[in-house]
């Protein structure tokens, strides 16, 4: 244990990232973005775990691979021991299909970044949280073990779950959200908004509301209704001549944003985004986002919170009032400032400082 933490402060603390690098979506993108920040604050090691969730191969999400190459960081696969002052494990749900973590973690501070909501709307567990945390707990020796929520909604699910599971009280919750860094270059909103609507997501059932709600969100009278990631609707042979249904990743996101002025994003009512990267991307692209209040909570006034039944009126109002449209888009981009690299760096620095204080003590 002593040897593991015998690094000199001059070269910065040792930071270990633990992730299954094969997550294709927001988790890998978020880790990629924060590695750029973390690399300037300490000696970073990235530990890849091949979890049962993704099988045995060694693929790495492209966004993560790009950053690792850029920073010259090696990816250490399935190390039997991970030791650092600060160990950051992203998305504990990757352990949900296996009985053990499969190694040891030695840390002063172990932070588990939640990424996924612990509870679904209605209070049902999103995954076997207790088992995943227990696997990490059993595998780790740390002075402090924390859970880092990624948004206010995510925090609420974490705290509610912890309150209902006293056996997990050894885990504390970080005060600040471990948000996704949203440093996309902002695009100015259009001066002449049109009733061009769209949504994009992975094609999972959880990402889509009931068909009746989709019909409300994307009516025949809209100039355009573009659904990117519509694989499920296509497979189900849903016929809506006024919809442009595109398979997931069939067009570049930039091209897709060129086809719409409004992101109308609702999910299954039994599921919630934990952060909502899809919303952040749309805001950065200068679009106005309409979504349900819970999903939009992380973005505050940056999105228009509404129900599917209220979408039409809201869009009509903004199409008729381009200035209001631009103002709303601007509010969205202003909110994104709160998810900047700089803001994240400040929070990470504070965390590292806390670890250092603990070491000095």
């Amino acid at each position: 244990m002593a040897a593991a933490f015998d690094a000199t402060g001059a070269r910065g603390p040792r930071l270990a990232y633990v992730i299954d690098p094969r997550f294709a979506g927001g988790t890998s993108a978020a880790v990629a973005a924060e590695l750029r920040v973390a690399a300037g604050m300490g000696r970073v090691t990235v530990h890849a775990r091949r979890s049962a969730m993704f099988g045995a191969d060694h693929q790495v999400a492209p966004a993560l691979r790009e950053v690792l190459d850029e920073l010259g960081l090696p990816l250490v696969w399935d190390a039997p021991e991970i030791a650092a002052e600060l160990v950051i494990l992203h998305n504990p749900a990757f352990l949900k299909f296996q009985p053990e973590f499969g190694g040891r973690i030695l840390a002063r501070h172990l932070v588990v970044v939640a990424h996924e909501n612990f509870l679904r709307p209605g209070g049902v567990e999103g995954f076997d949280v207790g088992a995943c945390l227990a696997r990490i707990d059993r595998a780790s020796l740390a002075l402090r073990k924390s859970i880092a929520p990624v948004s206010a909604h995510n925090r609420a699910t974490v705290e509610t779950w912890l309150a209902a599971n006293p056996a997990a009280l050894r885990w504390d919750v970080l005060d600040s959200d471990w948000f996704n860094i949203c440093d996309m270059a902002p695009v100015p909103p259009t001066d002449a908004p049109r009733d061009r609507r769209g949504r994009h997501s992975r094609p999972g059932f959880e990402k889509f509301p009931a068909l009746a709600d989709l019909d409300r969100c994307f009516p025949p009278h809209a100039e355009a209704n573009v659904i990117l990631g519509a694989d499920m609707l296509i497979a189900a042979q849903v016929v809506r001549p006024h919809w442009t249904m595109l398979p997931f990743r069939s067009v570049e996101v930039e091209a897709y944003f060129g086809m719409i002025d409004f992101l109308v994003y609702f999910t299954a009512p039994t599921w919630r985004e934990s952060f909502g990267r899809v919303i952040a991307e749309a805001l950065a692209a200068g679009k106005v986002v309409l979504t349900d209040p819970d999903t939009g909570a992380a973005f505050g006034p940056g999105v228009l919170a509404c129900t599917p039944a209220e979408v039409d009126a809201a869009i009509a109002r903004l199409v008729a009032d381009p200035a209001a449209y631009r103002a709303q888009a601007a509010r969205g981009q202003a909110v994104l400032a709160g998810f900047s690299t700089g803001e994240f760096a400040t929070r990470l620095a504070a965390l590292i400082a806390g670890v250092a204080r603990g070491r000095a003590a």
Partner: protein
Amino acid sequence: MILVEAASRSQRAYDAQLIFAAQLAARGHHVAIDAAGLPADLDRGRTYEAAPFLVDPEDLAVTALILLGADEIEDRVLAALRDRALGPEVPVLATGRFADHQAYLGARGKIAYALGREPRVIDLGESQPRPLIARAITPLVAARAPRPRPLGRVPMLTVALGGSALDAPGALARLAQMAGRATFGFQLIANAGQKDLIKASRYHDLPVVTFTELSPVTLAAGTDVFAVYGQGVPGERMAALATCLMAAGGVVIDCTEDRAFLSQGAPVLRGPEDPAALEPYLTDAVFVNLAQIGAQMAASPWVAAADIARLETAAGLAPPPAAPMLAPAAPTRPRRTLFLPTNGVGLGHAQRCTVIADALPEGETAAFAAFPSCVPMIQRRGYDCLPLVQKSEAHPEPYANDVLTYLRLGRTLAPGDRLVFDGGYVFDSIFRTVLERDLPAVWIRRGLWPQGSSSDIALDRERIFARVIVPTEAFPELNDAYGVGPRIHPVGPVLRMGQRADADRAGLRERLADRFARPFDRLVISMLGGGVASDRTAQLQAIAGMLAPRPDVLHLVVVWPGANVPSGLYAWPNTRVVQTFEALSLCLAADLVISAAGYNSVHEILYHRIPAVLIPQSAPYLDDQTRRAQALAERGLAEMIEEADLMRLDRVLADCLDGGAAERFRTALAAVDLPAPGAGQAARLIAETGGDA
């Protein structure tokens, strides 16, 4: 209606749907399976099993949905679930055997996403920690309703064979020995290969069904003791059978090599692995204590954990009505006897049934289900008739029409009704309906079959009938004995009796002369049959040609209404075609009848003493008309002409019309001693069959 779905698409999953649907239906629930999910390659047995539950998607009015096997849920099933757009008032229950909490949460989440709300998910592993099949999709639950044992006069034993059960020398002989015991009933469940082997052997009359031929619910309902051989529990269907039986107070005997039932803690008896030892074990240890053993099984905690009521409650289903039915029950009405005659070559079966129905005692109500060609005749005789669908090459499956028959019978028959079947081959629809509804059933079966596999199958199915009424032939050498036993009742020939008053005869001949504007001295009737059996055009043309030079003869070709008539017959000067259900009246007025040698025509000719020339049909699936015709010819009661022997026909006709042959026949017929007709006796036997017997 309760929609029963499976979370995956496979034969095993579809079996689970069928089994659970049958269980719910037996509890009195209105159950549906989405017809859109019907597998394209469904086998025959499962097709019948599914048919009562299939509802087209647009006709589904779902009041509850039960999703089976949620531990392995497929995206296409989720997509279908999402498309259903069920309202919030429709309870959704999913069952599964989840490996761990994550599997449970994962499945629950997937369903919730597709549904847009939370389902109720039951982990069957909690209530059944040791199910008979580890990952069974079938819930393996049952209605806990012990019944008095044995169910009938003697205990019913059902034996499920292991895969190598027939490999041992003498195995079939031992089974046949058990099947022959009068102290218990016996049936085998075997795989298709084993059944084929049995049917091809000298033991072909062993009662055997395949694992998929009948629903496990039906098999359990007719079984007291279920003995299982082989390695492991032989699939979910047999596991369901065992569970249903135990919950109903029946006895399961584990004769498997690995003690598959016992190892799961099921309250079963340990039986001998050697089938040769089964019978003494049953006799000495089981049958004598049947009721007590069954009661213990039914009361065991293992069976309590498999109570179907738990799932019903979880699914929010209303308590089932008291009277279980496979399909919506027919309206309450007095019991009736439903006659189902096949149509065979002509309308003989239907006609015979109407004769027997006419003879039913006062207070008995008769109705019919029959193929279209028979319906007008039956209705004309004063009976309601449910039309059935004729077999057709246009149907996708050769048994498609019989599936419809099965459905229609199910919707028509009410508890307590009797079913009387008249035909040679017991259709699957009859076989299943009688067993599933535990109907008192009677088989009117004539003999004189050519040897062949269809007769073997028919006899195998004899066991479902409480009584077999065998209308005998008039002459003893024609009465082949295809079986003996307490259920088989030979009766005298069943035929329609007409009145032969000379005044009536003369009046009819006058009316015929007027009707056809052709005075005649002699009336010749030809009724050679035909139908699907054989084309009689050549014979009819020959007869018409032979009679054409005789201006004093009126030749009537008599066929059933709707029968195909060769157009060439209309060209002859003294031949006319008559489509009628009253052929007997015409024959009574005739000087000579030229007839096929079917049972009805021959006996009507005999009993009404009508001079006749018989031209037997020889299609391979008919009864043996040649033997019947020969019997008459050898006694000098009629002349017989082979189908192709038209040259001789000319001479015989001349002898009948110009010589003394007709008179000779008439004299011989007047002197022949015939057994008493049997319609009245048949009707009494039917009336005695069933609850009031």
